[in-house]
């Protein structure tokens, strides 16, 4: 089991940089862990494990959103690092090893997110000065290079962890005891509850709870596949509005 070369580290670092900037604008969902994991999987040669790690992190993030610019765990960077580690480990336990890196990395990265958001303040002050000089070019530069703190706070940790850290990260994984790996596996199973809970917290379930039960019964008792539930949901949603309109008009 070898580490990654500088080339792979560089490609993933650039990918992390480009992703976060394109998340800022035009708002591509490259920051979604699922997408980040799949692309990383492609780079390191194990798309399946990238999809699995990305999917697990995406489910954890269900109800999370950067409301008003609030910081949330950086699941994109977590997915990149987790996938890289999992593909390196390979075989049985690859997913667990990847998650064991991805989850703490996602949480630790919030610190760098805050740093990036704070450092960019320098650029708007620079723009203020350019404005007073009447320099349109200065304003343009300040705005366009405002992406630097955002991109670098992702690219640098990814580069270091994938390249320099391959050995140490490997040693760390090899030394993980069984109880830890089992614990991480169970954690991965429990954590979607967090995403669902955050989501339900934002929905008016006091008023609409029966629909929650309809969905539950469809899966748990009637064994309808998930796609079937989604189609049924679209039908019921449309019917609800239509019938409500009829009642209001009649």
């Amino acid at each position, binding site marked *: 089991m070898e580490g990654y070369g500088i080339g792979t580290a560089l490609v993933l670092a650039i990918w992390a940089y480009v992703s976060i900037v394109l998340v*800022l*604008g*035009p*708002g591509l*969902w490259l920051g979604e862990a*699922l*997408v980040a*994991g*799949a692309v990383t999987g492609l780079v390191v040669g194990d*798309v*399946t494990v990238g*999809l699995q790690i990305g*999917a697990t992190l*995406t*489910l954890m993030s269900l109800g999370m959103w950067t*409301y008003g*610019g609030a910081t949330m765990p950086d699941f994109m960077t977590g997915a990149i690092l987790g996938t890289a580690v999992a593909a390196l480990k390979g075989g049985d336990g690859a997913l667990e090893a990847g998650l064991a890196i991805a989850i703490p990395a996602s*949480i630790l990265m919030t610190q760098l997110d805050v740093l990036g*958001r*704070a*450092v*960019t303040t320098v*650029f*708007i002050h620079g*723009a203020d000065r350019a*404005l*007073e000089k*009447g320099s349109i070019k200065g304003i343009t530069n300040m705005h*366009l290079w405002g*992406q630097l703190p955002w991109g670098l706070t992702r690219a640098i940790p990814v580069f270091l962890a994938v390249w320099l850290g391959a050995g140490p990260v490997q040693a760390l994984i090899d030394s993980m005891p069984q*109880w830890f790996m089992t*614990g991480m596996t169970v*954690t991965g*199973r*429990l*954590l979607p*509850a*967090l995403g*669902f*809970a955050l*989501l*339900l917290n934002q*929905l008016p379930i006091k008023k*609409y709870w029966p*629909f*929650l039960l*309809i*969905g539950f019964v*469809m*899966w*748990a*008792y009637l064994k*309808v596949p*998930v*796609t079937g*539930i*989604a189609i049924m*949901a679209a039908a019921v*949603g449309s019917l609800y*509005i239509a019938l409500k309109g009829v009642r209001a008009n009649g």
Partner: protein
Amino acid sequence: MASAAKSVGSTPVSDQVTKKDIQRAMWRHIITLQWSWNYERMQALGWLWSMLPILTKVHKNPEKLKEAMRRNINFYNTNPVVGSPAIFGAAVAMEEANNGEVADSLKVGLMGPFAGIGDTIMAILVRPIVAVIAAAWAMSGSVGGAWLMFLVGVAFIATMPWQFNVGYKQGINMVHEVATGGKINQITEAATVMGLIVIGGFVPSIMAGVKTPLKFVRTLDVQGKATEKVVEVQAVLDQIVPFLLPVAILGFAYWLIRSRKLSPVWVLLILTALAFVGSALHLL
């Protein structure tokens, strides 16, 4: 879209601003609004830079231009994808007509409500449904999951030129109507119903792995002979209500957030601790 320069609502008077300038402003906003996002004034610099093609044409006097730029670098923050293009479109129409003050009050008045609408549509109504379906596909090894996620993001972006043009053509009236109108409530309601059914079905399917390996060995007296019978707790639970454990864990997490007002990171740590303790005791 093609008639962007022909404004109906607000009749811009400036003849120097060309259709090309308006397109440039629109694309600057769509692509780069948040590139210089910062804690102090958030999307302000992106807003100013997007508005520059208009401002530099309208204000030939350098001092007047500076004045207009100072107004446009004030605090601004809203949902950049759903909402902001419409606000920006309306503001472009105002600035073009040299109605900068109206543009300012429009911007300040609408960024809050539009952030609420945009975040609700994206983060609560659309993303979770898409994410759950995409994750289910991805878990089964299908690259389609990642594509689905990516393409929905693209679909959102595809609506941005349309939003801009609605804002630009209708000016304030239309933007106000969207913010307060009944149509958006209907859509929200239908999507809420849809979302809850999907979540109701996906909670047990996604969390099906949450089971207890707990077993009891009971000694039974069968026709005078002592026989040992293994009782699997999970099988007993399944007979009461299937997926009882996932629902209980979700209820616990919901309670922590709703009633205990804990932050997501705390709930994450508590669930992790629960998983470790549970697995060490062979309960989970």
